[in-house]
């Protein structure tokens, strides 16, 4: 039971990453590698701020801020510097490693004995692991609602149009470069938030905690899409969160099968690769049909 609650809690906290990456990967339609740097940067900034006596709420907001700054740099390199997005992201990700070491002063910083968002009296009064479920739900609700509102505004529609058809967007007077920079900033701000939440939940920040992050974020997006199929934009946002939780269950099962935590990155990559190849399998074996039949007989 505890394992299930923990998986849901982790899924909710990590869903912020999936939602952040959704903005660039699905809406702007490009892979943004910056996230591998912004996630530990958000964690580093948040943990350092807390250990300097700043309140956890402010520390979390600072993490959002540094994430947005990293996104701004990638955006400027990409749009104004004309560096291909993949390389621009890798450059910022690489630079972020050094910056993160500077922020923390060392490779690993603990929050032992320090206050965090999870140490409020209400969250501590809950049964074990329910703190991350409750806080995760609150955070996801806030982020999702803000995104739903944003995407239905004139600015949000221009943002979607930029990713959907850039030539058209420009011919309608949409400043597509600004849209891309904005998207990268908001996206990386959310990744920074994810880093802040996960580090406070773990109780430490580590300079290497960004490795493989993009795969985890992609997994929530892809699993959500594979599991729920054709959806409207708002439903797709919710599907990312559900995908993130499902992904945690997959990991839970895999660990139960006897793999250990060191295998996680390999397993994550395999899970993601399988999910992304699903359309190919589906064509070959009519997979969804078989799956549906299998599920129906279970009920």
């Amino acid at each position, binding site marked *: 039971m505890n394992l299930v609650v923990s998986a849901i809690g982790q899924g909710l906290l990590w869903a912020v990453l999936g939602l952040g990456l959704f903005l660039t990967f699905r809406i702007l339609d490009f892979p943004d590698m910056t996230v591998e740097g912004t996630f530990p940067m958000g964690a580093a900034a948040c943990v350092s701020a807390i250990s300097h006596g700043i309140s956890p709420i402010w520390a979390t907001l600072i993490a959002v801020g540094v994430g947005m700054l990293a996104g701004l740099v990638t955006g400027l390199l990409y749009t104004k510097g004309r560096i291909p997005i993949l390389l621009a992201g890798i450059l910022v990700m690489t630079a972020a490693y050094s910056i993160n070491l500077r922020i923390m002063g060392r490779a690993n910083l603990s929050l032992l004995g320090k206050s965090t968002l999870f140490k409020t009296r209400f969250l501590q009064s809950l049964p074990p692991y329910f703190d991350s479920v409750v806080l995760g739900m609150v955070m996801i609700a806030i982020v999702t609602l803000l995104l739903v509102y*944003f995407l*239905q*505004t*004139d*600015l*949000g*529609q*221009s943002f*979607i*149009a930029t990713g*959907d*058809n850039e*030539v*058209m*967007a*420009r*011919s*309608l*007077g*949409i*400043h*597509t470069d600004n849209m891309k920079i904005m998207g990268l900033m908001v996206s990386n701000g959310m990744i920074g938030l994810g880093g802040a939440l996960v580090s406070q939940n773990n109780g430490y920040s580590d300079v290497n905690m960004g490795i493989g992050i993009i795969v985890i974020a992609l997994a929530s997006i892809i699993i959500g899409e594979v599991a729920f199929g054709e959806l409207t934009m708002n439903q797709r946002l919710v599907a990312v969160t559900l995908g993130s939780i499902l992904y945690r269950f997959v990991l839970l099962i895999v660990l139960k099968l006897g793999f250990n935590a060191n295998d996680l990155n390999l397993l994550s990559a395999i899970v993601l690769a399988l999910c992304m190849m699903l359309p190919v399998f589906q064509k070959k074996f009519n997979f969804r049909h078989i799956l549906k039949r299998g599920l129906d007989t279970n009920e």
Partner: protein
Amino acid sequence: MSNPILKLDNVVVNVNQNTPEQITILNHLNLTVNDGDFITILGSNGAGKSTLFNAIGGNLKIDEGQISLRDKNITHLSEENRTRFLSRVFQDPKLGTAPRMTVAENLLLAKKRGESRHLTPRGLKQQMAGFAKLTSTMNNGLDERLNTPTGNLSGGQRQALSFLMATLKRPDILLLDEHTAALDPKTSQQLMAATNDRINTEKLTCLMITHHLEDALKYGNRLIVLQDGQITYDVSGAEKEALTQEKLYSFFSDIE
């Protein structure tokens, strides 16, 4: 009527500048477009028709010369900022619409062409009735598919939508780049007729590239021929009315 709205003076566009392969696409081209002109543009491949549109539209920097709108120099105005007074329809149906957004969403984007966009609710519901009425003028079932992603429309419906989007907010200059070329003959003719209707009723100023001599003669009040980056033929009014396909053919064979 002869009130100049758009002027191109001595416009030069080169590709591969400062390399041995330098080619001049627009060669000191001069063109004055009057308010209310509906100009059809003919020219063989490589004559510079699309380059001319890109220069006017601003997605191509010109190397020499000046472009002005109502005596205001717009040579260095960005593509995005020119959309305040200019709209265009592309030849490729895929270029004119956002495939994952619905017909209505696309129209709403076009309704705010050239305006700055803020964090204000988009207000799609209030527009739906107007959009239904507008799309029904196309007589191709577009009005029944307002909530369909444009990626699921036929090419003809997409181009009709692109055309509506370009004219929804009245442009000072409308550029049509062979917008019916990718369609089957019947759909192409329908869209061309609808285009002509709308341009005439709204009294739009329009430049239209076409490969159909027939269309070039039938529509518009002025016809120009582009050859090697220059305008080699320019007729309007009664003179254009008197023009026949045979005369145009002989003209083309003269220059080749």
